[in-house]
């Protein structure tokens, strides 16, 4: 099951904050492990989902640490490849992973 | 037009002047006897003309820089001798598979290894054909006079651009270091072939797609055509592929673009061949000895003739077949133990008796030696 399939009212906020492109995702777990707010989790297949949208500050770190360009923070661009920066996207380039990164989480989902 | 003024020129000088006349505007090299003069002359000429020259840290780097410069639109050349030629083989293969035009001059000396640095030899003939790993076509030209050094260097550049391939000029120590009186054509009289550029907008450019010529058009880096160049087998877009239905046509095209022009690429010079009973098949400095032997032999009534090979690869099969047909004997003198005589025997196919005359003592074969050899085998 792809996390992007059929947005329901419950996960609409999640889709708005982080877009996942499962075709490119290799389920490495970087985004989940390094989310400073632990807002991301895994679905039953190991794909990332925005488990707790309330905690997500759209800091953009998961996007930067994703080696596969498989997720996008902020409003999803109309189409991948659109050159313009969509209005309202919030990315904090000064976010320091050293400052924000959590201690290693137990490997619940067996990543890596 | 002014009559060309005769000059006393060294073979290496003539190669350099030929390169400049053909539009060479990039040189990267590493000094090595007996090819260093070319690097020295280019270091003097190119900066004054506003073109790049660089002495790299080794021969591998020299050919790498030439490939880079050629991809960026320059007519690039490097010059080396045996040890450097060995180092260049991997990048030579790269230039062949990525179809990068450039000219590589190898002035042959005694080998293997450091061998006989200041002595003459012709031991790199098969290396020029088969030195790099994998199978690929090769174009190799071989001058025997200072004048031919100039002419064949111009031709090497023209063929590199026309066929989008590296072309090797295989000189030897005698021809490269020899000085002769030559009258070179004025630069405006030299025919120069330019690279075919794409004429479609960048979005429509498919870098390795070809028209009927089998030779793709090469856009220069930084001209708005953004594409990928790789030493991996690639598809028409330049992206790596291992699909048999893409790999097989790729190799077919790589060979086909050369093989369909064999008749243009087979360059020879006949000397007193018409009624010859015994024919020398020779190349490089050895052709000079063979021609002298023909002259001396003819003065004594011997019906001798010579076929000089100006292109060694693709091997000039048809002219050699013609030269062998109806003769009593063919003798192939060369400064190795039989690198071209093997080819001559291959195409001879029972036409006549083919003998080799190999020599590897660091000296030229003399006309006397050839005439004595004929006397022995009579």
């Amino acid at each position, binding site marked *: 099951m792809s996390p992007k399939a059929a947005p329901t009212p419950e996960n609409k906020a999640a889709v708005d904050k982080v877009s996942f492109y499962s075709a*490119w995702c290799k*389920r*490495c*777990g*970087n985004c989940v*492990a*390094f989310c400073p707010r632990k807002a991301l989790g895994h679905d039953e297949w190991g794909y990332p989902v925005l488990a707790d949208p309330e905690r997500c500050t759209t800091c*953009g*770190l998961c*996007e*930067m*640490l994703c*080696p*596969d*360009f498989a997720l*996008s923070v*902020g409003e999803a661009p109309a189409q991948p490849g*659109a*050159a313009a*920066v*969509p209005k309202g996207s*919030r*990315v*904090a*380039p*000064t*976010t320091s992973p050293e400052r924000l*990164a959590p201690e*290693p989480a137990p*490997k619940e989902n067996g990543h*890596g | 037009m002014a009559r060309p003024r005769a000059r006393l020129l060294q073979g290496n000088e003539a190669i350099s002047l030929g390169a400049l006349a053909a539009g060479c505007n*990039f040189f*990267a090299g590493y000094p090595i006897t007996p090819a260093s003069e070319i690097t020295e002359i280019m270091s003097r000429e190119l*900066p*004054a003309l506003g073109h*790049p020259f*660089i002495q*790299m840290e080794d021969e*591998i*780097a*020299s050919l*790498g*820089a030439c*490939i*880079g410069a050629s*991809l960026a639109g*320059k007519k*690039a050349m490097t010059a080396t001798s045996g040890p450097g030629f060995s180092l260049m083989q*991997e*990048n030579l293969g*790269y230039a062949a598979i990525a179809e990068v035009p450039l000219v590589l001059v190898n002035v042959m000396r005694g080998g293997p290894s450091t061998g006989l640095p200041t002595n003459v030899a012709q031991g790199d003939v098969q290396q020029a054909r088969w030195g790099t790993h994998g199978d690929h076509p090769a174009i190799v030209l071989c001058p025997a006079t200072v004048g031919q050094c100039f002419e064949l260097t111009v031709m090497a550049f023209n063929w590199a651009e026309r066929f989008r391939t590296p072309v090797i000029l295989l000189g030897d120590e005698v021809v490269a270091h020899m000085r002769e009186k030559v009258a070179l054509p004025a630069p405006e009289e030299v025919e120069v072939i330019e690279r075919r550029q794409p004429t479609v907008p960048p979005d429509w450019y498919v870098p390795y797609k070809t028209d009927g010529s089998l030779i793709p058009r090469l856009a220069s*880096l*930084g001209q*708005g*055509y*953004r594409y*990928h160049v*790789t*030493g991996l087998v690639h598809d028409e877009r330049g*992206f790596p592929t291992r699909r048999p239905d893409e790999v097989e046509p790729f190799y077919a095209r790589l060979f086909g673009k050369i093989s369909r022009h064999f008749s243009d690429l087979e360059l020879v010079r006949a000397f007193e061949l018409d009624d010859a009973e015994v024919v020398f098949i020779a190349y490089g400095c050895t052709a000079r000895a063979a021609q002298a032997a023909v002259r001396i032999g003819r003065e004594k009534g011997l019906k001798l003739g010579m076929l000089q090979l100006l292109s060694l690869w693709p091997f000039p099969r048809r002219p050699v077949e013609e030269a062998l047909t109806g003769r009593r004997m063919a003798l192939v003198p060369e400064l190795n133990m039989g690198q071209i005589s093997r080819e001559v025997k291959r195409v001879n196919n029972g036409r006549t008796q083919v003998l080799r005359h190999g020599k590897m003592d660091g000296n030229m074969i003399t006309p006397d030696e050839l005439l004595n050899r004929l006397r022995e085998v009579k």
Partner: protein
Amino acid sequence: MPPVHRSVVYGWLRHDKKFPHVWCPGCGLGILLGSLLRALSQSGLDKNQVVLVSGIGCSGRLPVYVDVGSVHTTHGRALTFATGIKLAKPELTVITVMGDGDATAIGGNHLIHAARRNLDIKTVIINNQTYGMTGGQYSPTTPLGAKATTAPYGHIEPSFDISALSATAGASFVARSTVYHVTQLDQLLGQLIAKPGFGVVEVLSPCHTNFGRQNRLGSQVDMMLEFKKRGVRVERWQKLGPQEREGRYPLGVLVDRQQPSFDDSYQAMAAQAAALRREKQP
């Protein structure tokens, strides 16, 4: 600097190239690629002005994904091709991407000479301390004692410090970061692109598939957290004593100096040569 949205990064990826890319799940090369694309998009450069050159190995596959002129060369020779390109077209921004084996083993000679020559080439060396693509053999940066498929009893050779080597050889700009410190990496790559002369950014990156597995270092996440633990910003590094420095390394700009670049010196020499020639042949 304005924020870089992923959509801008997507704009620098090649749309006719198949994704996902060839690298292992979690490989730092993908993170570096994203970082490089953010730095490029912020540099103000036109895609047509940029040429990306790589050698062989995992890192060699990076340029093919980027929508610029890209050249995937022979093993260790990226800098030689880049030298030819830069000399031929000085107006281009030429960036080479190499691995540690590529840059410091087979291509070590080219690295030190490119640094000495100070031709304006921007070099990114991704250091995963092993030969990843060929199966985890030891490289010039494999730590003493580490296991490799060609060092089954532990590695016995001291390793190169890529940044120190580049600095000593004469590079104008030398910096180190890791794929964990991705925001710092963005900045350093931006500085690298802007800096004239030969510049090197060494990027530590995990190879959990080969190096990590052989040395029981866990997942790429564990290896990246190790970078966090050991990497120290250069400003802080300078205040550390020898004992505190043990097992750690400085991150950030290590060398930033002004010196004549090869391009400038060559232009000056060529102008002089042309003038001399005009004098001789009026």
